[in-house]
Structures are given as structure tokens and as C-alpha cells.
């Protein structure tokens, strides 16, 4: 990809925004999600994205971006 920072921002958003992440994982909505961040959904991009999906899921699945429980 020409602009790494755009791709990083895409992965970062996927990490912190569960709705956006779900869109990225849904093949029907994937292109729209990429275009939202100004990224052309080329084969190269999709390949790089797929290579990172596991890492995102591993980090996100540990309540990493869930609400903090209330403390009384």
C-alpha cells in the first residue's frame, strides 16, 4: 500500500470500534468499510487485511475494548 498510515488507521479503528470490525469481517460490507476510510479495496489491501484479522480478533476478544465494569 502506498500510504501505510491509512492502513494502520484502518486496523486501529477495527481494534477499537466493534461495529466497524464487524463490517470489515462481513464480506458484503468490507468494501464499504474500506472506502469509508479512503482505502481502495484492492487485492493487495484485502490480503494485508486478512493477514491481520487474527491478531485483531486475538486482542479484541479479551474484553480489551469492552466497557469497564462499574465499581462500587
Amino acid at each position: 500500500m502506498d500510504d501505510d498510515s491509512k492502513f494502520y488507521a484502518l486496523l486501529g479503528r477495527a481494534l477499537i470500534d466493534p461495529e466497524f470490525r464487524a463490517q470489515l469481517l462481513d464480506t458484503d460490507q468490507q468494501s464499504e468499510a474500506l472506502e469509508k476510510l479512503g482505502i481502495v479495496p484492492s487485492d493487495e489491501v484485502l490480503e494485508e487485511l486478512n493477514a491481520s484479522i487474527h491478531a485483531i480478533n486475538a486482542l479484541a476478544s479479551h474484553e480489551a475494548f469492552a466497557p469497564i465494569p462499574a465499581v462500587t
Partner: protein
Amino acid sequence: MELEADSKLTSRRWHDVDRLFAGLPPALFRQVKLLEYDLALRYSPAGQFHDIFSSPDHPPVLSVARWLLRDLEIPPGATRDETESRLFVASVLMAARVQTVEGLRDPGGFTTDDRIALVQWLSDRASAEIARVVPRDSSFWDEFEAVAGEDATRVAADPDFAAATSDDPEAHLVSPFSAPLRMVALAALAAVDRLDVAPRVADMLGQIADAYQVIADLAALQRDLQRGRTSYPIAFIARSARVPLRPAPRPEVILGAMVATGSVRPIVESALGRLRMARGIAIELRLSTFAAFVSNAEADFEARLASWTVGSFASGLARPAPAVRPSTPTLSQALGMAEGFLLADPTFRESWEMHREGMLGQPEVASRFPAGLILEILCRRGLDVRRLIDEFLNFTVVNGFRYYDHPRSGVDSDTIGVFLRLRPLATGTREYDRAASAVLECLERNVHEAGAIPVWLSGCAGAQGSESAVIALGEGCGTVAAHLLLGLVAAPVEHERTVALGAQSLLDRIGSVGVAANVNYPPLYALGVFFRLLRLLDAPDVPVALEGVGHAREALARELERAVSTSQMAAQDAALLILACHEANREDLIDPAWPVHVLKRQRFDGSWIGEPFAAAPNRGRSVSWYSSTLLTTALCYDALARGAKGQPPATD
């Protein structure tokens, strides 16, 4: 049995801490109470103060002296007991000091500058505890000074300078617990005359502290990115992804780069490497408790690493903490909380100037005027409060434009002004124009007679006139005149002569006495209102020719520059100063510390405690301050919202 004895001993030592805190003067005691909760929230698995630093999730901040004396086989007895007790208290005090200092440095937190005295007390008292067990002529005190100096340098370091001068991750790794751990350890060793192992013990504890700091910084990654702070993991990821640290990268970019470069593994492995070094020293010195602790920590870090990178964790173990904690930007959260508070009661009743001292011979008389100011602010921030404005305007009409809700209350310019300013924001405006025509004619007569805008109007149809000397307070207030003019200039029906007379009179007065033209409001609030009016009067479509706008602006600009050079202690003052700078188009004068000052004083319900805003009659023919939590909240909200375009600090 040994465990039971340990537990009783620990309990006794916590009683020493509790007794120490309970003896504090009330102001310090209140601060310490919050500090206890802050520590418990961050460092106790069960949220209890007496459990802090008791789990392997944190460095053994409170256990160092006890473990050292045990591992070095110092015989049990009164001396060892006294040393352990004193150094336990010193450890708690130092941990409390760390939490307070870190809180002071956190723009999104709630630790305010008034905790400086507490930091001083914690430092002094910790030193005093150590002095009870370490001889005065011990070389320990030279080491103590050196470590304290190193810690002070850490706290005083300019993070921007560090970020600009080094992209080496190691330059950004400093644990706030490193100094307390080493100080207490050195004190324990000095007390039992074993300073021979001090350098290696200090090295071991430094490695442990740094290892935990790597994990803590990883957890705080999103928050640090939002704050623009560079930490070890941020510098590590930036270097791996070749992303420059200045200007500060967007949080999503570094978070995404962390994923793309697979940085979580090497970052956690760097922490594991430090633990391994610490374990090596512990084994070398035969410090078996430390070796066991570090060994457990290594297993824990490895389990976390597996769960964060592979996505699974060993069955039977507790679910690992997240690698990166979620962090909501402080400013947007604070604004949302404030909106929730402001809109909770659609009547804004708490803001009404409610009199129960017998004004006008009544048990209860109220002015709803402040609610109008709140509605104006909410509108400015784009909230749809048209229905609430309709209700406010309807009441104003029914009440005959009187300040108080009583037939004998005077009609006043503030009420007419807020009516005129809110009128274009209502759902329908024509009926309000008709309703205001009589009072505006009355206003015109009053202005022409006085040659200026009066606070209280006389001779209006339907008004019985003010019969109370108390109600007639505050005549000649330039801010009231400005409030009226802000509405009148924009009114659809022409009031050129009234505007010309009233505005010219006010401009002359401001040009002559500056912000002293204000009588009834906080001077900083008046500055903002005056600047807003000057901007309106200077607009090309204003149909009246006025003299002295520039002169008045110069006079007010001097006052604003004087005001920004003084320290603002209250949240409302800081908010008013921010607002005045915006109204004067002098955003360059806004100190970034002011919004932080406001944020730190927001309460959990989204409000800011009401601060004095205007004088109000009280019992015994006296005057006291009107204050309203709703109004102060609206002003703080307005000030913060205007700066929302800037980079927000973060909270977790």
C-alpha cells in the same frame, strides 16, 4: 499457621496506616480518603484499600522490606518487627505519593493542585518512618538522596522534549514505583547492616518495576495516545512501523501499526527479559521469596502474551486482563455528562433565583432569568431545546416581563434581553413579537428619558411598579445593558434610536471605566458579554452609527490581558476566562491548563458545583451570593465545548 500469623501481622500494620490517616486534619483526611479509593481501584484485585499490591498483577510495592528481612534470615524479634512495621507504613505512604503525583500529571483525572500539601506530607512522613529504623550516620541517606533526586528528575522531565529528542523506546520507560521500591529496600538493608548487597537488590527491583511498567504502559496505550504522551510501547511500535513520533500520531495509526507489525509479542518479551534478569539476581543473592515472586510473574506474563497473540488462554485460569484498556476521550465524555445533567430537568428549576426570605411579602418568589442564560448556551452548542425555549418565553409573556414572578416585581432589561435573544430560536416567533411590542415601547420611553439603558423599567402598562428597595438593587449595570442590546440589535422590528442611545451610552462608559461598567455580574463574565456586543456592533449591517467601538475594545483588551495573567482557581472563573478569550477572538491567550482545570472539577453526575454569579437579596435586608450548579455547569460546558476542536486529553 505461618500464613495465619502473616495475615495477623499484615492486619496490624494496616491498623498503623489507618491510625496515621485518621489523625490527619480534615482537609488532608478528605484527600487521603479519595486517594485510598484511587489506589484500591487501580492496585487491588477486590477493590479494597488493604489489598493493594497484594496480587501478582502489580510490583510488590508493600512487601519489599518483609521479604528482604525474611530472605536474608534476619532473626525474628523486636528490632525486625519494628523495621518491618515502619517500612511497611513508609511503603504505603510512598505508593500513595506516587498515585497523587501521577494524578496531578493526568489532565483527564481529578487530582487537583490542592493536593500539593498532601504530597509534601506523604514525603515527609515516609522519610520520618525510615529515619526511625535507619541510623542517622548511615551511608543509606546518601543513596536515599540520589534515588529521590532521580525520581524528582523523572517527574520534572518535559515529555515533549523527551519525545522530540529520542525515539529510543528505552528513553520512555520509567516506572514511578522504581524509586519507592529501591528506597524501602535500601532502608531495610541499612537497618540490618546489609548494605553490601544494596546495588544488586536495587538493580533487581528496578528490573521488576520496569517489567511491570511495560505491561502497564501497554494497557494505557490508547489513553497515552489520546493524551499525546509517548510511552515505551508507543515508541517501540512507532519505530517498528517507521511512524514519526512528532507530530503526535493519531491513536488509530499506532494501534493499527501495533497489529500490523506484531509488536505486542516483542514488547511483552522485553518485559519478560527484565523479569528473567531480576530472577537471576534473586537467585544469586539467595532471595528465595523474590525469586518465587518473579517466577510467578514470568508465568503470568507468558500466559497473557499467549492470550493476546494466539487468542486463547489456559483453562482453569482467570481470563487475562486486556492488553490495551479502552479509553474514552475525556472531553467528549465530559461534554456528554454535562449535557445529561443540564437536560435532566427541563424547567432548570435549580437555577431559578428563588427567594424565601420574604421578598415582596411572599414566602416564595422566583426569577427564572438564569434558565434563559442556560437555554442560550445549549442553543449555541446546537442542542434542540426549542420546546423548552417556547415554555420559557410563554412564561415571560404571562409574567409581564417582570424579573420576579410577582405582580409587584419590576420589569427589567435583563428579562427583555434574554427574551429577545431566545425569540429567534423558538418554534414560532410572530406571537412573541406581538407580545413584546408593548414592553419594547415602554423600554424605548425609558431609554429616551434616561439617555441610557436602565436595569429596571418604570411606567410599563400592567406593572404595579417596584415597591421594594431590595428589588431595585443593581441599577446602572452595563452588563444588563449589553444583554439587552444583544437581543435588541438583532430584533426584526427596528429600534434604531433605542439602540443608538443605549449602545452609545454603554460604549462611552466602557471606554471610560472598562469592565467596571459592569455592576451585577462576575467581571470575567462581563468581559465576555461586552466583547460579544462589540463584535455585533462592529458588524457592517448594524443600522446605527456609533462612536468609540475601537476605544471600548482597546480598554477591554487591556483588562483581558491583565485577567489572563492571574491564576484562576475556581472552575467557573477558568470557564469565564476561556469564554471571554473566545468572544474577544483572542484564543491565543487561552492557557491549555484552564480547560484541564475545569475538567478536573467536574462531578460524577456531569455537573460543576455552583459558584457565586450575582448578588441576591437575603434575610435581614442583607445581600448574599446567588449561585447555581446548573448555571455554573452550563458555563463550564460552554467553555469546554468551544475548545472541543483541539486535541482532547484522555481518561480511562
